[in-house]
C-alpha cells in the first residue's frame, strides 16, 4: 500500500547529476531530425552526386518545401496572395542582383539566393529599367554618332520605347513560361531531382537581365569593337548564371536533350542582346578623313567613305 510520502511529488535531479551518481544506467538520446537525413545521404551516395547536394542544399529542402506549402495559402483573388510575392527587403534584392552579376562557380542561384522566396519585384523593375535604359542609351548614342552632320535633325524616337518594352517583357515572361512547361513535360517522363516552380524561373531570368543595364549604358560608346566585347562579356556572366541554374534540372535526362535545352537558353539570351544592339543602336560610322580624288579633268571630287 502506498504511503503518503510515496504519493508526494518528487523532484528529479538534473540528468547530468543522476548520471554522475549512477554511471551505468541506460540512457536514451533523441537526435535532431535534421541530422539523420544528412547522415543517411552521405552514406548512401556515390561520390559523383555530392555536388548535387551542394547545389540543392538538401539539408533544408524538406523544410523549405513545407514552408513553401504553408506560405502562399491566401486565395488568389485576394490582395494578400500577391503580397507574398513582394516579401523581400532591400538587402535581399541587392544580394540577388549581386549574385546574378558575380556568378559563383558551383553555386546555384536559385538555391543560394531565392530559397523558396521568389519575388516579382526584381524581375518587374529590372525589366522596366532595362527598357528605358536601352531606349535612352540608343537615342543618345545615335545623337552622338550623327552629331555634326548638316542633314541630321535630332528626333527623340519615342516609338522605340514601346517596341523595347514589348520585346523585353515578352522575353522575361514568355521564355520562362515555355521553359517551365518544357521542364514539367520532361519531368513526367524522366524523374528529375531538381524542379523549379514557374516563379523561380521568372526570378532567375529577371535577375539575369540586370547585367544588360550597365552594358546598355556603355553601348553609347560608338566603337564596334567595344560594343561586341561588352556583348560577349555580359553574355558570359548572365549566361553562366542561367546555365548553372538549369543544368542540374536537365542533367538526368537524355544527354542530347539536356545539351539542346541549355544551348537554346544561351542562344535566346544572346539573341536578345544582339537584337537590342542591332535595332536600337545605329552602326558607328568609320571616321576617315574624306579623301580627295583628282579627276582627270582637273577638278577634285571629295568623297566620303
Amino acid at each position, binding site marked *: 500500500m502506498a504511503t503518503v510520502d510515496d504519493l508526494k511529488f518528487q523532484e528529479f535531479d538534473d540528468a547530468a547529476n543522476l548520471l554522475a551518481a549512477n554511471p551505468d544506467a541506460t540512457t536514451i538520446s533523441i537526435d535532431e531530425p535534421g541530422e539523420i537525413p544528412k547522415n543517411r545521404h552521405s552514406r548512401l551516395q556515390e561520390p559523383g552526386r555530392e555536388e548535387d547536394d551542394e547545389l540543392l542544399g538538401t539539408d533544408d529542402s524538406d523544410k523549405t518545401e513545407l514552408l513553401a506549402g504553408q506560405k502562399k495559402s491566401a486565395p488568389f483573388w485576394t*490582395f494578400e496572395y*500577391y*503580397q507574398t*510575392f*513582394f516579401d*523581400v*527587403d*532591400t*538587402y535581399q*534584392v541587392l544580394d540577388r542582383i549581386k549574385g546574378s552579376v558575380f556568378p559563383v562557380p558551383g553555386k546555384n542561384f536559385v538555391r543560394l539566393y531565392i530559397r523558396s522566396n521568389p519575388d516579382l*519585384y526584381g524581375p*518587374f*523593375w529590372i525589366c*522596366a*529599367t532595362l527598357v*528605358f535604359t536601352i531606349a*535612352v542609351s540608343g*537615342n543618345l548614342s545615335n545623337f552622338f554618332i550623327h552629331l555634326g552632320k548638316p542633314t541630321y*535633325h*535630332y*528626333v*527623340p*524616337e*519615342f*516609338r522605340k520605347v514601346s517596341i523595347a518594352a514589348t520585346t523585353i517583357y515578352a522575353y522575361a515572361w514568355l521564355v520562362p513560361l515555355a521553359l517551365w512547361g518544357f521542364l514539367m513535360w520532361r519531368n513526367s517522363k524522366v524523374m528529375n531531382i531538381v524542379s523549379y516552380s514557374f516563379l523561380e524561373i521568372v526570378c532567375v531570368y529577371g535577375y539575369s537581365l540586370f547585367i544588360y543595364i550597365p552594358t546598355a549604358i556603355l553601348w553609347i560608346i560608338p566603337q564596334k569593337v567595344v560594343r561586341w566585347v561588352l556583348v560577349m562579356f555580359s553574355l558570359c556572366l548572365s549566361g553562366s548564371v542561367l546555365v548553372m541554374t538549369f543544368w542540374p534540372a536537365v542533367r538526368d535526362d537524355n544527354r542530347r536533350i539536356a545539351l539542346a535545352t541549355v544551348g537554346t537558353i544561351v542562344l535566346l539570351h544572346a539573341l536578345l542582346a544582339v537584337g537590342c544592339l542591332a535595332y536600337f543602336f545605329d552602326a558607328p560610322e568609320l571616321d576617315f578623313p574624306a579623301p580627295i580624288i583628282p579627276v582627270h579633268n582637273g577638278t577634285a571630287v571629295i568623297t566620303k567613305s
Partner: protein
Amino acid sequence: FAGLADVSISEDIPVEGEITVPVGSRSPDEDYSTLDEPVKDTIMRDLKAVGKKFVHVMYPKKSSALLRDWDLWGPLVLCVSLALMLQGGSADSKDDGGPQFAEVFVIIWFGAVVITINSKLLGGTISFFQSLCVLGYCVLPLTVAMLVCRLVLLAGSGTVSFIIRLIVVVAMFGWSTLASTAFLADSQPPNRKALVVYPIFLFYFVISWMILTFTPQ
C-alpha cells in the same frame, strides 16, 4: 436664507430667453449640405484646396494636408498641361517623333498606378488614391521646367539653350523626387524604403527625359 423667500419677480418685467441649449457650432445640416451655396463658392473651395497643395509641393514640409484631403484635380490639370506642351515635337516621319498626347497621359497615369500598387504590395500603409494624389501633384516642378524649356527654346536652340534646359530639368527632377519621397517614404516599412523610392526615381526620370528631348518643329 430667510431673506430669499421674499424675493419675487415683479410681473411687469418680461422674462425672456431660450430654453434650448445653445449649440457651439452650426447644426450638422448646414455643414454638409452645400447644395444651396452659390456655384462660385464651390469652385473657389476646390481651387483653394488645389492651390494649397501646390504650395505644399513647392515647399515640401512634412505636412499631412496633401495626404489627408486627397484630390485628383491637380494631377489632372498638370498632366494635361504637360501633355499639351509636349505636343508639336518635331518628326520627319510620324514614327520617330516625340511622345504623342495619349502616350504622355498613359505614361503618367499608368506609371503612377503601377508605383502605387508596388508600394502597397511591399507593405505600405498609404491608401491608393492618396499615393496617386502625391505622385500627381509632384509633377508640378517638372511642368514648370517644361514651361521654362519652351520659353528658352523660343529664344534659340543652340548649345547654350541646351545647357540651360539641362540644368533646369535636372534641378526640377531632383525637386520632384525629393518632394514625393518626403511624403511617401514615411508610410513604408523601414527596411524597404529604397525599394519604394527607386520606382519613383525612374518615373520622374522618364518624364524628365521626355521634357529634355523635346525639340520644336
